[in-house]
């Protein structure tokens, strides 16, 4: 029984470590911020879940298990929030390779002056023809 549990735990740990390696590879090889985020969120969710499962099987004692569960739940709650904020700023600052995009749904409607589009300071649009408000379709 203990040997089976150890084998399962070690398989989970090795799979999580392999996902960390693939994240590094994708981070180095992919072309822009959004695709690098796509590679980087693999260990943030699945890798952390696998490693925490392996550690919770290996470690004895409920306090360690609860703390590892807390880390996993916290990671799953916060990864979408930070990814959303980073990708929104990346889109606004044009760090996105638009020639690689298939669909750009955010670029379809130009922003209207005075209309509330969000709660960020960068969402504010002064004038219809201003540089920062206009979407850049050509680049």
């Amino acid at each position: 029984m203990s040997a089976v549990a150890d084998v399962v735990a070690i398989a989970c740990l090795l799979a999580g470590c392999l996902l960390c390696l693939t994240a590094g590879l994708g981070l180095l090889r992919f072309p822009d911020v959004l695709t690098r985020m796509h590679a980087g969120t693999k260990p943030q969710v699945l890798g952390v879940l696998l490693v925490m499962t392996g550690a919770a099987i290996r470690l004895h004692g409920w306090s360690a298990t609860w703390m590892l569960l807390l880390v996993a739940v916290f990671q799953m709650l916060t990864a979408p929030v930070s990814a959303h904020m980073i990708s929104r700023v990346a889109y606004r600052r044009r760090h996105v390779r638009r020639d690689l995009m298939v669909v750009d749904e955010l670029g379809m409607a130009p922003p209207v002056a005075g209309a509330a589009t969000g709660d960020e300071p960068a969402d504010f649009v002064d004038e219809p023809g201003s540089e920062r408000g206009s979407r850049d379709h050509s680049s």
Partner: protein
Amino acid sequence: MTVVLVLAYAFLGGGALLALARLALGPSLLDRVVASDVLLVIVAAGLAVHAALERDPTLVPVLVVVSLLAFVGSVSVARYIGGMLLRSSEGEPESRP
């Protein structure tokens, strides 16, 4: 067990080195934010692997702190860049990918 230990730390070390390379090379600030986020996740995974292989639960509270730190760091830098966008009228020339 030694094979598992070497293999796990080799995977983690390779991932951390590649993330560090992106952190050094990254053309924009957001690439560096993503890379440092991944680096902190790899550090947390390394701590958990150490705790699991040694059966040593001392490092488990550090994991909570590291995952909190990753979230707060990436969100605060993203908010900071969003505030910079208000002040700069156009994107910098280096921001073109």
